């Protein structure tokens, strides 16, 4: 079944890949293109935390009527570099009796998980490493790895604070993973495809054709619920019970120092980018321009490359995450669990049922 019969078909090839294909013979061009793709994703994964750490500190400071870093570089722009150098030169400590292999493996897993999700994200119609048919399934499966890293870190540290933090993190992330999966399923149901590129292309048209508005009212509710669930999944405030620096001595990262701690720290920020990018892809039309339905303006907006829109929307969602974190007080563990199992989960199931009803009644134009 062709889902988008009379819509614009975006070409999946990009000029750089085509150029490589014309210059280099067949088997090597694919290897070279794959290498370029991995390199650009690595660059993105390592630059995103640098930007986000600075942004988080500045935004947090201004939310609290402070200024934040001002000394290193213009308005503290070089602060992440200073932080990074500090973390690199710190001694890496391993507690006595810790499981060496798992202790050093654990920090790598969350970073790997977020990197894997980056490979299926459509940054633009021609900027996607691979377009899996079951892209949403892959996202859910890959982001499960980060829970594994957190649990291993808590267990292998041989420290009761780490273990408690790890168990809390595991419980929280597994619970909210269910919510996120249900919301992704909702979008899959509405779009009729599980490929992330397909989901974006199903939102073509004006701004009202994005899933946040196209599924009347419920789309907006679903978007807000997605923001809440992904905030909990990211272990960010107000759901940062895992870290809870005032209560838990740093949770599962208690025993980590130097570059192993930096890996957790970096993964946290890449994860935030990935979650915001998923919210953009599923609800805000991904790389599509926010068209209003006015001829001139639409052509102007369309002239801007898709990845600019993608990053603009993603950073908008990231700003909302930061807004949440620096406004709301932290929840208690039992409140968090009650919230997930008694409020969010029934709401998501209800939304799913409503979506199914809308589709059988053919109230949503495909």
């Amino acid at each position: 079944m062709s889902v988008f019969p009379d819509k614009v078909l975006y070409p999946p090839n990009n000029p750089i890949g085509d150029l490589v294909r014309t210059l280099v013979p067949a088997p090597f061009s694919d290897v070279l293109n794959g290498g370029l793709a991995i390199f650009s994703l690595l660059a993105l994964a390592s630059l995103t935390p640098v930007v986000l750490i600075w942004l988080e500190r500045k935004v947090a400071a201004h939310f609290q009527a402070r200024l934040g870093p001002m000394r290193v570089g213009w308005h503290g722009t070089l602060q992440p570099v200073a932080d990074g150098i500090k973390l690199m030169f710190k001694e890496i400590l391993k507690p006595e009796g810790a499981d060496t292999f798992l202790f050093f493996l654990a920090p790598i897993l969350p970073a790997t998980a977020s990197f894997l999700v980056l490979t299926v994200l459509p940054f633009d119609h021609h900027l996607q490493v691979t377009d899996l048919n079951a892209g949403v399934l892959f996202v859910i499966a890959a982001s499960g790895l980060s829970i594994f890293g957190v649990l291993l870190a808590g267990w292998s540290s041989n420290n009761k604070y780490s273990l408690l933090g790890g168990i809390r993190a595991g419980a929280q992330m597994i619970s909210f993973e269910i919510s996120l999966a249900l919301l992704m399923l909702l979008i899959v149901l509405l779009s009729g495809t599980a490929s992330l590129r397909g989901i974006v292309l199903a939102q073509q048209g004006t701004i009202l054709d994005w899933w946040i508005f196209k599924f009347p009212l419920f789309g907006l509710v679903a978007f807000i619920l997605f923001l809440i669930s992904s905030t909990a999944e990211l272990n960010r405030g107000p759901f940062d019970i895992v870290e809870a620096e005032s209560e838990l001595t740093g949770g599962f990262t208690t025993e980590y120092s130097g570059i192993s701690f930096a890996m957790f720290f970096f993964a946290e920020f890449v994860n935030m980018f990935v979650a915001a990018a998923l919210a953009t892809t599923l609800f805000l039309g991904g790389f599509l321009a926010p068209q209003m339905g006015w001829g001139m303006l639409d052509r102007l907006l369309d002239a801007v490359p898709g990845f600019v829109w993608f990053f603009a929307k993603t950073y908008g969602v990231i700003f909302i995450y930061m807004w949440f974190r620096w406004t709301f007080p932290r929840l208690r563990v039992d409140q968090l669990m009650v919230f997930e199992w008694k409020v969010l989960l029934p709401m998501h199931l209800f939304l799913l049922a409503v979506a199914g009803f809308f589709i059988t009644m053919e109230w949503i134009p495909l």
Partner: protein
Amino acid sequence: MNTTSSRQNSMTPGSPQKQTPASSLPSGSYFKRIVSGFISLLRGMGLTVTYLTDPRTVVTQQYPENRATLLMTPRFRACLTMVRDETGAHCCTACGLCEKACPNGTISVLTMKDLSGRKMLGKYVYRLLQCTFCNLCVETCPFGAIVMGQNYELAAYDRDALVLTLHSEEDEPHA
């Protein structure tokens, strides 16, 4: 959760045992609570976004750079100083109440006699090293002769430089 509900029951012994499990939430029906909670969250977000967007709300002072225009709050307490009028005269009677009020032995009021034989202030020694800026001496003084000043740049290379003489009759020009 159980502790919370039992505490609430004990506070209202006459109320019927119809507590919802999530009793730490405000009263009202399930959906009413969700809506009112959501509205209060939005109100909080509105408050913080005014802090973010309005640069006048920033309270941070960039100290070494803005030394000339630094804003000090009136309640800020630093080095103890003596109140003097335009002729440089103080109104201390050397009663020694401040010395007694000080919990750390920071102040020493050394007295002397004037020509008519009345007790007067000879030397007022203030040991900054021991001072915790608790303001008790200022509050005790019946004459308002001393006040907590606003000069906070008090670092010195020598301990002796931190034993200050706020008044000495020997140094006075008219003595």
